[in-house]
């Protein structure tokens, strides 16, 4: 394993360990996504059709991710740890990638419960829709880890994070919903993969400027 990959793995493992101990993020995400799906189940009129339900699924997923992202940099904010990581001689993008990997793990864990619940309440997801969820998760965590780091440095972080993240998540919702309901879902998957590639590179390259003055 290269030194870069070892740094990313160590930083992501640390986040998983912190979550196992503090249990701050994942239970909140699980509770939120399940309760949202229950609310949607009763709120959606009978006969609304699958298309509306898929749209609501994406609303639930994006806001669940937002909940996780709001907590993502809390351990680094406490005790000024981000300064310690920035001073370390590792590549600073490894800090972002480690955080994105850990956030992805939490989001996938929440979806492992949410997607069967969605199938139970509304309609099953086909393989294309599942691939759309997977690709959107990558984009959410890549962009979300960057903007949540930006928000964490601000005093109005609770306000800044949704203002930065939600506009950037719109293409992911378009791609995800398209992959779930369109006849040619493959085109939307390609769109999501392109978004992931472009925004991952941008986030990777710009993280250093976010965490340094």
């Amino acid at each position: 394993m290269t030194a870069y990959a070892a740094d990313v793995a160590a930083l992501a493992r640390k986040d998983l360990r912190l979550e196992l101990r503090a249990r701050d993020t994942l239970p909140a995400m699980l509770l939120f996504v399940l309760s949202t799906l229950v609310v949607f189940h009763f709120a959606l009129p009978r006969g609304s059709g699958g298309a509306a339900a898929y749209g609501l699924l994406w609303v639930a997923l994006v806001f669940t991710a937002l909940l996780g992202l709001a907590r993502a940099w809390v351990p680094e904010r406490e005790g000024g740890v981000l300064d310690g990581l920035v001073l370390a001689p590792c590549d600073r993008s490894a800090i972002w990638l480690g955080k994105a990997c850990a956030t992805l793990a939490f989001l996938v864990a929440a979806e492992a419960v949410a997607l069967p619940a969605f199938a139970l309440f509304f309609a099953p997801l086909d393989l294309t829709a599942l691939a759309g969820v997977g690709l959107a998760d990558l984009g959410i965590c890549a962009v979300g880890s960057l903007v949540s780091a930006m928000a964490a440095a601000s005093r109005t972080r609770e306000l800044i994070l949704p203002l930065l993240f939600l506009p950037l998540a719109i293409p992911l919702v378009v791609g995800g919903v398209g992959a779930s309901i369109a006849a040619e879902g493959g085109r939307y998957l390609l769109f999501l993969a392109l978004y992931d590639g472009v925004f991952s590179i941008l986030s990777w390259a710009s993280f250093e400027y976010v965490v340094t003055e």
Partner: protein
Amino acid sequence: MITAREVEKRYGTTRALRAVSFELATGGCLLVTGPNGSGKTTLLRLLAGLATPTRGRLEVRAERSRLGYLGHEPLLYRDLTALENLELYGRLYRVPERRERAGMLLERFGLWEARNARVGSFSRGMTQRLALCRTLLHEPDLLVLDEPFSALDDAAASLLDGELATLAGRRTVVLSTHDPGRVLALATARLALA
């Protein structure tokens, strides 16, 4: 090792550090003193590379990997144990045999018994001792220490006195303190901020 020429720092309209100039040779020890709000912490953050000067020229001839910084905050994860924190930093700083090195420092600073306790359960003095372990973990060439004696009891402060005496002449040290008498004998230069 360090050259500062008219270095000034502003945050918006607030001047955090008035223009300062000094030089510090390798192996020297610079004692920074001054009242609250005079810019001691700002200067040390500039030296560590955590901030950039608004005006002036600051040259620190030490790689990031060879710098040890002790700030007002411990830079430690509260929900990791003392040993886990040091192991994580040891990995990021590429410290060979980091577990052994971490164990040795924990023992030296009287934290070996608490090595598996979470930092969040530590007293302020214990946290400061662990922060010192973190700062010294990778045997840095340049030590930037902001109020290193704060929260330390007499025994721990004496331990730090001894550590600084050992490092004197072998490492470059910049430290700020409200108790200059404690380290005056070690200092090769003094900078009084107003």
